[in-house]
């Protein structure tokens, strides 16, 4: 591959940009543009980040956060997808709960954490509850709108072969809505991670990435570890997101392929 061709590759381009930024920060730090107690050197942060990967205490915290994340997301999917299907297929019911949804949805979920702390004495329950509240919206909305957009010809085709409404829902509406639901779940995954860490930061407690950060903030060289833990939180977000994207590509090839034909 020539240099020019390499530049056209998005991954290569992105990596180049990040590397440049990190090098600049390192150079600025070494040149004394800012004190290392304001922003540690890039090399120090990288070293701490790598160090954390072998730190058993930190890994336990990561496991705790990801447990809350996956349980919360699982519960949200299990409750919200059927609910979205129900609301999407019953326009009358949807119309009556619509105002409620419009009222609840814009409430910043992080602002509900103090209330949740009062309601849920158990830390894991608390995290799952706030994850559920924050991440149900993209799944609910995508399921409802996806269902509304199911091709009437497809539904009518199955109907003409004598299939009833439930069979049409299961065999036509659900599969054609699935790509939209999957996108909702991916968005919800990002939100769930934010809420899991936020709950840990606000509610304290003994485990989770957020709890690790709070603990680190009281130690003298804590800043380096706080930043390193944040880097890991970012990496977890990126990795889970790309896993979702990869799964969507594999499962819904028919969706992208057909959209490609139509375009």
């Amino acid at each position: 591959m020539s240099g020019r061709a390499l530049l056209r590759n998005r991954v290569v381009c992105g990596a180049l940009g990040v590397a440049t930024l990190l090098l600049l920060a390192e150079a600025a730090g070494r040149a004394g543009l800012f004190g290392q107690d304001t922003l540690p050197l890039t090399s120090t942060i990288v070293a701490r980040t790598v160090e954390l990967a072998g730190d058993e205490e930190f890994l336990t915290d990561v496991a705790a956060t990801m447990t809350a994340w996956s349980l919360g997301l699982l519960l949200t999917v299990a409750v919200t997808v059927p609910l979205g299907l129900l609301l999407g297929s019953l326009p009358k019911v949807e119309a009556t709960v619509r105002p409620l949804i419009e009222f609840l949805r814009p409430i910043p979920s992080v602002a509900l954490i103090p209330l949740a702390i009062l309601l849920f004495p158990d830390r894991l329950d608390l995290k799952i509850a706030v994850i559920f509240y924050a991440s149900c919206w993209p799944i609910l909305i995508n399921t409802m709108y996806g269902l509304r957009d199911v091709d009437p010809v497809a539904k009518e085709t199955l109907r003409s072969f004598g299939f009833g409404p439930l069979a049409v829902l299961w065999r036509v509406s659900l599969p054609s809505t699935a790509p939209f639901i999957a996108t909702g779940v991916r968005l919800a995954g990002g939100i769930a991670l934010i809420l899991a860490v936020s709950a840990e930061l606000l509610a304290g407690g003994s485990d989770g990435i957020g709890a690790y950060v709070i603990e680190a903030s009281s130690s003298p060289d804590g800043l380096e570890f706080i930043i390193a833990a944040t880097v890991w939180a970012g990496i977890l977000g990126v990795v889970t997101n790309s896993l979702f994207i990869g799964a969507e590509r594999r499962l819904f090839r028919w969706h992208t392929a057909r959209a490609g034909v139509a375009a």
Partner: protein
Amino acid sequence: MLEISNLTHTYGSGPSAHTALGGIDLRVAEGELVCIVGPSGSGKSTLLRSIAGLLRPTGGRITLDGTPVAQIPDDLAVVFQDYSRSLFPWMSVADNVSLPLRRKGQSRKQRTRSAAEALEQVGLASAGSKYPWELSGGMQQRVSIARALAYRPSLLLMDEPFGSVDAQTREDLEDLTLLVRGLHNMTILLITHDIDESVYVGDRVVVLSKAPARVVGDLRVDLPGPRDQINTREHSDFVRLRGEVGRLVRGVRPSQPSAL
């Protein structure tokens, strides 16, 4: 086998109401292939959807083999014009064809066998594992036809089935329809706006008027068989029938002397 008497249908109510069907009477005998032609917007699809039980007409009676159509009749299949929307893109071609057979309580093995057989009948024996969107438009419509055939309906309804394919493919699909009708003892109702097609394919051509639609012509097509895209279309009876149907569709008095 199919009897329609004084069928009317009005969409909506009040000042915006639109009467699509203004009292249709039609009888179709078992095994017949009847083409229905009419001007665009005359109510052809409305008629077909009423027969299929997909729409509840506002008046009149439809009976299939003596039983009134209240819900969707059991052994009836529909081929829609829009094959790309009517086939399910998340399923392979074979699965698309075998899905309706679940209604017949067939085992998986039976369904697979029936689907393969139907695909072979439409000349797509090797396309079973492909996805519909990997096929050309004509091939996709063949899959829809195979899906209907596998279901073994006693009545097959087709709503402008060849309206979205090129002329050559259209002729191939017309010949396919003539071929498969002989395979099972199916009664076929084919809607088209193409006058030549109605005469070429049909045993009978029924002409509908502009909305509110009524039957304004019912012609028997007696052409020497087997039909052939070149010779049949040159036959003097074909030319005469085409002219008659054309005049009826355009609303010209049928009593006008023909040039022949």
